[in-house]
């Protein structure tokens, strides 16, 4: 009897241990990512571009010098400067009439200098390891127009956020209609037989292919053969194939949950199959379709292997669908690239924090919809 109790006790202990281990792993991962990444997540991180941008500008001094106080105030330019944490000269304040807002770059185009931009060179004086006083003096003494070298600091994730949104939209536009219509065919029209089995077999296989093979395929066909170069279109096309199984199966679940009586009463009233589908079936399946879309968004946000080799790793806001301007790194792609290129776990974890927030929000939305969907089904 006691050996039975001992055995039971050990097994129960193992069970509790396993469950605790699983939860603990999550805590460790989240803790690690937050610990390393949270300090780096601030408004600068969320609002700046990734690469810093250096521009040479020419600016005319004010005719009536501005009135301002403070050690770093430059009356002839209407700005306040200070040293940032790297001892570089940073513009911390700008009067509304400051000529720097209407500076022009060397090509003659206007370039609006903003707060938090750095001044690294004024005419021939390089602003390195200077004191605020000296910098102010150089700027005051300089003859108008002053030639300045202005650096807009980077380190922000705006391009990745925008790229992610573009790719989400593009992939869904391609995959959602095909997926939903496929599900409707499979559930409403298809008759059991060879064609149906073939389609189902194909979908199951698509679901199991690892994303790196999608990456290979996408790179070969879209980037190289169709010459789209690394672009969001190539990435989205590849992603839409990855999404098809998810969208199809979730939509099918939603369609299956609609009672046959709905369809039968519609047909009994004289509607055709098509009318039944788009007037009765589809509207009732909408919550399920919404869940499918949110699951897909989650998948897109987390996908990296396939995107890296189709959309590229350049941190820019894509300017076109294909071609050289269209390469765009998403949050996940950039995360990997940061670790690979610089091993900077802190920045990588900051991006990871943003990713995790996105995923948790998507999870919660999807749960809410499922809850409401199930609640209405009870009716």
């Amino acid at each position, binding site marked *: 009897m006691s050996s*039975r109790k001992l*055995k*039971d006790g050990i097994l*129960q202990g*193992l*069970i*509790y*241990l*396993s*469950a605790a*281990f*699983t*939860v603990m792993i*999550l805590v*460790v*991962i989240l803790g*690690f*990512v937050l610990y390393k990444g949270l300090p780096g997540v601030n408004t600068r991180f969320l609002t700046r571009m990734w690469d810093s941008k250096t521009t040479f500008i020419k600016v005319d001094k004010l005719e009536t010098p501005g009135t301002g106080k403070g050690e770093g105030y430059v009356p002839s330019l209407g700005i306040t400067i200070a040293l940032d944490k790297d001892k570089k000269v940073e513009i911390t304040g700008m009067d509304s009439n400051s000529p720097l807002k209407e500076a022009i770059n060397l090509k003659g185009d206007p370039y609006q200098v903003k707060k938090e931009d750095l001044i690294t060179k004024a005419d021939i004086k390089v602003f390195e390891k200077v004191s605020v006083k000296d910098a102010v003096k150089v700027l005051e003494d300089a003859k108008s127009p002053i030639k300045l070298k202005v650096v807009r600091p980077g380190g922000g994730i705006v391009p990745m956020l925008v790229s992610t949104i573009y790719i989400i939209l593009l992939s869904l536009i391609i995959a959602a209609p095909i*997926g939903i219509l*496929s599900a*409707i*065919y*499979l559930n409403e*029209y298809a008759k059991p037989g060879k064609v149906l089995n073939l*389609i189902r*077999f*194909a*979908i*199951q296989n*698509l679901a*199991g*292919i*690892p994303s*790196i*093979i999608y*990456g*290979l*395929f996408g790179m*070969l066909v879209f980037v190289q053969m169709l010459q789209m170069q690394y672009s969001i279109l190539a990435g989205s096309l590849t992603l839409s194939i990855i999404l098809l*199984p998810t969208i199809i199966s979730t939509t099918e679940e939603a369609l299956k949950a609609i009672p046959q009586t709905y369809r039968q009463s519609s047909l009994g009233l004289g509607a*055709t*199959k*098509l009318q039944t589908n788009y007037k009765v079936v589809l509207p009732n399946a909408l919550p399920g379709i919404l869940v499918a879309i949110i699951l897909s968004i989650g998948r897109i946000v*987390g996908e*990296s*292997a396939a995107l*890296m*080799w189709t959309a590229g790793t350049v941190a820019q806001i894509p300017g076109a669908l294909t071609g050289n301007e269209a390469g765009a790194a998403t949050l*996940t792609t950039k*995360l*990997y690239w940061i*670790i690979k290129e610089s*091993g900077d*776990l802190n920045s990588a*974890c900051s991006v*990871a924090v943003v990713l*995790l927030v996105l*995923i*948790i929000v998507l*999870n919660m939305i999807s749960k809410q919809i499922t809850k409401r969907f199930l609640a209405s089904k009870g009716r």
Partner: protein
Amino acid sequence: MSMNDKNSKSKEPGTDMASVRMKPNRVRDVIEKIVETIFLICALASVISVIAIIVFVFWKGLAPFVGDNAYSVWAFLTGTKWDPGNEVFGISYMIIGSVYATIGAILFGVPIGILTAVFIAEIAPKSLVRIVKPAIELLAGIPSVIYGAFGVGIIVPFVNAISPRPQGESMLAVICVLTVMILPTIINLTEASIRAVPKSYREASYGLGASKTQTIFQAVVPAAKSGILSATVLGIGRAIGETMAVMMIAGNPIGGIPTSIFDKIRPMTSNISMEMGYASGMHQEMLFATGVVLFLFIMIVNITLIKITNKVGDKG
């Protein structure tokens, strides 16, 4: 008289309605047929995609083994060195690395997964389930690059500390991370299977005098066998196909069959991903060839899975 008139009046519209109803609406029928065909084409999109992927990957991947400069398939599959600069392409050590890492992940992941699933489905009070279940859903949703960052930041230094080798990137690190990554898959499916076991099984077992633990491990879990098997097969598929997380922590040497868990390994997925960016010519074709081998492994896994689920479907 007036009544008769009324009756005859109401009869005429009735007759007209009948003739209107009987006339077939050709245009509408044609539209229905067209739309149904469009639906069918959409559904076939999946089939076309799978075929396209297989065709292209195999076409590019089998190319280096045919023709004038044919590379020997045997040398490819059994070679132990990967040196594109000198046109040496051997992936045996990569296959072994992938397989060993996957076996390790399954050895740890399946027991922990099953036990945790048992916890959620059988033992835990509702309050604990409310904590553990969302935790697992969150684990399932974390992108693999974040697991990679976790691997680089925590697992690799840890392995480095206990390893006789001078580096932390190793098979052990890959096994650790892969185990964590397949846990949610295994737990979810196993839990679903356990919940699907009819109550009568448990009640019969209790009726015979068994304790709760005995019931779980001798009645419920065996009944959920096929679901657990499916979960394991899915876990294998995920582990073999995982790229981003393992790339950063595996070490990726250019040769050498791993003999200890502290050895660096180069899974097939990492091989493809690491050099895809700059490979060309035969080098690139060899990467596709690695993809073909990976694909074959996955196909075997997929077909096994489909066979298992079909068997379950037959048993009903």
